[in-house]
């Protein structure tokens, strides 16, 4: 039987059709089962805050230790003029999330995330 780790890549389009809580539940349900989740577009800061809060509530001894998460630095978007008047937005980028006991980040820079994944 083939052994390994499941990796789910979730498209930006799919994420845009979900509410914040749907995204968080989707991530935590998958990660709790040992799946590595790669989001094409990262979570908004408020969603990240809720993800940390919900993760803490899910932690159980000898079962689930929490999550490891890494993302490319977010990008400022908007024209020069919109930046000047403070109307620019921040675009979140590709994000990798996995169970803390299986996913270890090795290195990250602005264009590359290196991670090591182990089976359970």
């Amino acid at each position, binding site marked *: 039987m083939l052994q390994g780790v499941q990796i789910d890549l979730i498209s930006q389009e799919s994420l845009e059709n979900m509410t914040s809580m749907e995204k968080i539940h989707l991530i935590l349900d998958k990660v709790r089962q040992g799946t590595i989740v790669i989001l094409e577009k990262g979570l908004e*800061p408020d969603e990240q805050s809720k993800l940390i*809060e919900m993760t803490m509530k899910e932690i159980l001894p000898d079962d689930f230790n929490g999550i490891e*998460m890494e993302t490319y630095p977010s990008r400022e978007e908007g024209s020069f003029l919109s930046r000047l008047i403070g109307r620019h937005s921040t675009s979140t980028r590709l994000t990798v999330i996995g169970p803390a006991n299986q996913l270890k980040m090795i290195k990250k820079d602005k264009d590359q995330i290196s991670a090591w994944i182990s089976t359970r």
Partner: protein
Amino acid sequence: MDIFVQTKNRFSRFLSAFFKKKRSRIGIYGPPNAGKTTLANRIARDWAGDAVGAVSEIPHETRRALRKQDLCISGANGHSITIDIVDTPGVTTKIDYKEFLEYGLDKEEAITRAREATEGVAEAMHWLREDIDGVVYMLDSTSDPFQQVNIMMIGIIESRKLPVIIAANKIDLPDAAPQKIRSAFPQHPVVPISCLEGKNIEELYEQMVHSFR
């Protein structure tokens, strides 16, 4: 603290009460073992004469947000702020009770500590979204400032448009590199300090008065 400063503090408190100055809740956030409680204790001792919570080398010593109310901090230019200091548990995305076993705790104690720590982190995140008016983000100058949790927390604080000061702690240690923290977060004021020795702490108070007014 000398008599002059104590008298000045009392006078500032009197003026603040007289003019019913707004009281802000300032959260001390940061990763575990950055020195948050040591700073909260120092602020409370300097401006109110007592401490906030216990400190230890075991991560997650603070497992509940602790509040010290009504501290009046004065700057050199005569301005002052009245704040509640909220010392929060170290923010992280993972807590494994087995880490605590390495510090000599038995399994039951370690599991209890881990459970309390998870509740504390969840509570700290909730406070940040609902009840905090400004943040002192505490970093250990001997650690990598680019850790995901720091990037995420600063992003969350910025998205809420809260004023933030980054305190680069532990500059008394030989490996301290506060300039790395400055280059990681150039958009925010960074104050290198040693909470343990009190080094540069006056500079932090000046920055607090400036940023949290």
